[in-house]
């Protein structure tokens, strides 16, 4: 296969950056998208040029490290798929693809397709954990959790924090990420002690990082590699209302 790429190149965070055209030759349809970029990078290295920087780690679609826009869609055209699990057989010979980094004020570009997603870490640091000391490990099944609750909590906890939701949202909102992290704890007994302070602190951090607000369009849900639904956002809003009107701490 041969693919024509238009890739965002930016040497440093302060560099202006711009698009550069590359041709990926001799690509096997069985390669993943990142393997195709590896091939391009090898040819760049041989020519003595700087390879295209992109994030990746597990390449199994479970770690949330990789991600950029392929042809105008975060993680590319396949639903429920991170870019490392996108395969070249999805494309046709001589396709032209634009590769761009996530764009958001809260996600500054570090280099090429790599952005700084530490804003997500700071949202978690604001409250996405439990800090109550509960002593030693309890006997199994001592705290009963309904199957439905544990399933729902797991569905929300499946968020890998890749940032595609922010990239897809016209407002660069991180509402889907934040809500998934609020919801997975809100479903479980372990999340109850700090339930109200958690949601308020995480939403405040979300806003302070410069993310926008949710317009309920669901573009985030459609590109999410873990298919986290925006029902989480409604849940977060409920939690927020509850924290505001009911809780006294």
């Amino acid at each position, binding site marked *: 296969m041969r693919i024509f790429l*238009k890739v*965002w190149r930016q040497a440093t965070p302060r560099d202006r950056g711009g*698009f550069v055209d590359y041709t990926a030759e001799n690509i096997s349809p069985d390669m993943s998208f990142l393997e195709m970029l590896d091939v391009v990078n090898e040819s760049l290295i041989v020519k003595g040029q700087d390879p295209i920087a992109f994030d990746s780690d597990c390449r199994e679609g479970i770690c949330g490290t990789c991600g950029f*826009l392929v*042809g*105008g*869609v*975060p993680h590319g055209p396949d*639903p429920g798929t991170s870019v490392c699990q996108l395969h070249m057989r999805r494309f046709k010979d001589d396709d032209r693809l*634009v590769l*761009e980094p996530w*764009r*958001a*004020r*809260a996600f500054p570009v570090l280099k090429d397709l790599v952005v700084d997603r530490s804003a997500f870490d700071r949202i978690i640091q604001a409250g996405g954990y439990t800090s109550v000391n509960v002593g030693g490990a309890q006997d199994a099944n001592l705290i009963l959790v309904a199957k439905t609750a544990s399933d729902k909590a797991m569905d929300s906890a499946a968020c890998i924090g890749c940032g595609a939701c922010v990239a*897809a949202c*016209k*407002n*660069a*909102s991180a*509402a889907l990420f934040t809500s998934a992290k609020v919801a997975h704890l809100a479903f479980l007994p372990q999340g109850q002690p700090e339930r109200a302070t958690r949601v*308020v602190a995480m*939403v*405040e951090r*979300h*806003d302070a990082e*410069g*993310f*926008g*607000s*949710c*317009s*309920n*369009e*669901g*573009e985030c*849900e*459609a*590109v999410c590699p873990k298919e986290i*639904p*925006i*029902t989480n*956002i*409604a*849940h*977060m*809003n*409920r*939690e*927020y*209302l509850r924290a*505001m009107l009911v809780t006294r701490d």
Partner: protein
Amino acid sequence: MPSRFRRVLSSSVGTKLLMGLTGAALFVYMLLHLAGNALILAGEDVFNEYSHMLISNPLILPIELGLLAVFLLHVYKAVTMWMSNRAARPVGYLKKELAGHTSRKSLSSSTMIGSGLFILGFVVIHVKQFKFGTFYQVTDSTVRDLYQTEIEVFQNPFWVTVYVLATLLVGLHLRHGFASAFQSLGLDHPLYTRRLTALGVLFALLIGVGLAVIPVWVYFRY
């Protein structure tokens, strides 16, 4: 106002809650407004009687002021939110496609600020033309002949066009706004969320087309 309350309402989620609440209130108003205005189809006497009943009610002033406050809050929050949302992405994309799949993005959802600002401008003209418009009196009575005012305005094809456009934009605004308000208020359930979206389309058509019919009807009748 306690500072916690203010802090909460100025956050991104609190802003959406306010947008949802004020939007829902304005939606209820639009339903009543449509029902009331549709009385013009029932003829001169019924319509003037209805409008007289409204303006002669001592509660009308506080209700109008409340409605104005809700409207202005909706507009203020929408504009400030739109500006901060734009600031959240200072550098745009070269190529951005619709995500498709489960996305609910529509013409309606991507034009909320545009349709909203048009409606804002329209409401100013509309209130000036009717509430503060030419005052006719029904012969031998103190009742205002609003029917006459309405006929006068809608003799002009320019105003008919503006009103049809504006009311259709209200419908477009509601197409996204109705279901979106429930989501913003956290009212979401597998049992009814999809039905609410369908209901939103229905209400958008009812209010948008329903209100657009009135000026067209008056224009062709007189």
